[in-house]
């Protein structure tokens, strides 16, 4: 199991051809208190760079862009009622989707933790 990071501040934890996806702690901190999360539905497919959701903080709305091609197999429905989970635990309880990867080759275009840390430094 490996975790990758995108320049749009998503993390993606991969197990075989499935993965869990969310926004990074750095992104959550920049956004401030999150008050609303708009998510896609199970079964929807997307390509890398497609908008796959919107996170709204007290300050503003921010789009979430897909770091890879894939299909949504599970949505974290608890965020609809408690969007604050995304602020409090962005890299664990505040996950957004479980996805099926269509093209695992794309993972090589993402960053590992050290590279991401350098990216946001």
């Amino acid at each position, binding site marked *: 199991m490996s975790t990758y990071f995108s320049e749009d501040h998503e993390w993606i934890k991969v197990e075989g051809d499935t993965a869990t996806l969310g926004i990074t702690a750095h992104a959550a901190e920049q956004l*401030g208190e999150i008050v609303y999360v708009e998510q896609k539905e199970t079964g929807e497919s997307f390509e890398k760079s497609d908008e796959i959701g919107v996170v*709204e903080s*007290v*300050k503003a709305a921010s789009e979430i862009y897909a770091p890879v091609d894939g299909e949504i197999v599970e949505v974290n429905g608890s965020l609809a009622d408690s969007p604050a989970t995304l602020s409090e635990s962005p890299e664990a309880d505040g996950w957004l989707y479980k996805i099926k990867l269509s093209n695992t080759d794309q993972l090589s275009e993402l960053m590992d933790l050290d590279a991401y840390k350098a990216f946001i430094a």
Partner: protein
Amino acid sequence: MADAPKRTPLYDLHVELGGKMVDFAGWEMPVQYPLGIMGEHKQCREKAALFDVSHMGQVVLKGENVGEKLEALCPQAFSALKEGKARYGFFTNEGGGIMDDLIVSNAGDHFFVVVNASMRHQDIPHMAAHLEGVEVVEIFDRALVAVQGPKAEAVVGAVCPVARDLKFMETTVADINGVECRVSRLGYTGEDGYEISIPEDKAEEVTRAFLADENCEPAGLGARDSLRLEAGLCLYGSDIDTETSPIEASLIWAIQKRRREEGGFPGAERIQREIAEGPARRLVGIRPEGRAPARHGVEVQAENGSAIGEITSGGFGPTAGGPVAMGYVASAHAEPGTKVHLMIRGKAQPAEIVALPFVKQNYKR
């Protein structure tokens, strides 16, 4: 526009307190502190919050009959404004739109005016050009600090006892730790509180005296915006502008009876007509039924899908506990209780027209 943003006399203090500085109307201002927008908002509703509003334009008007002369630019009865009183008003244009909103105080030997940061470049020449025989002096050497919230009287009163005796919309000169300040009981949060004009070299010292109170925390522009939105107070440039009339903006309360009847201000024709016949659209409160905030620019539709207006301010209301918004809708749809749709990212979200404000105003009358 390439000019470096200006800094208020409290800039170093903001940085020391962990303020996240952003460019706002050409000024480097704190949008929030480590407490966060939500926490600062609640601080203001429950205790007291301190805001640096030194970016706003402070202006002294000196001369004979200043109040009467201001009536040629504004639909307010400023000639009747008694010494020690402050009044909300606006400059109107010939088309009956709003050029800016402002607070005018009768300070006895002069009038003291506070205008928006983004409009001071317009307002000062506007007054200088039209107020004949009046000396218009823009004040650059004083900070302006707002202390707002149910504990504001205790916080300000501890170092300035006479502040306790002021009522809402009253103003006085007062000594704070040996510094001569102008203290006015008013604000932009819907809460009781004060705006205090302080000489710049003493601004940090006086501000620290307020912040030394355990009930007072600094708050930034983020909380200032969510507080004023919940309080149903207009933001110039968003909710009101040169196109919107004060009658459309539901600001008729700010036009005193004599002025409504007599006119004699720019745009009186439209404003008096709209008072008599009703405006075509109205600024209303809008409460989304779901959790999605509806922000500036979102289209408002009737339930049948026809476009009836637009959101002008919107976001999450921490005290309201959900999204809140203001916007213009066609008058036929402006009655509280009317169901509407908000087009958020292409999807129709149900919402309801509601009376403003979203939270009860706690002024000390």
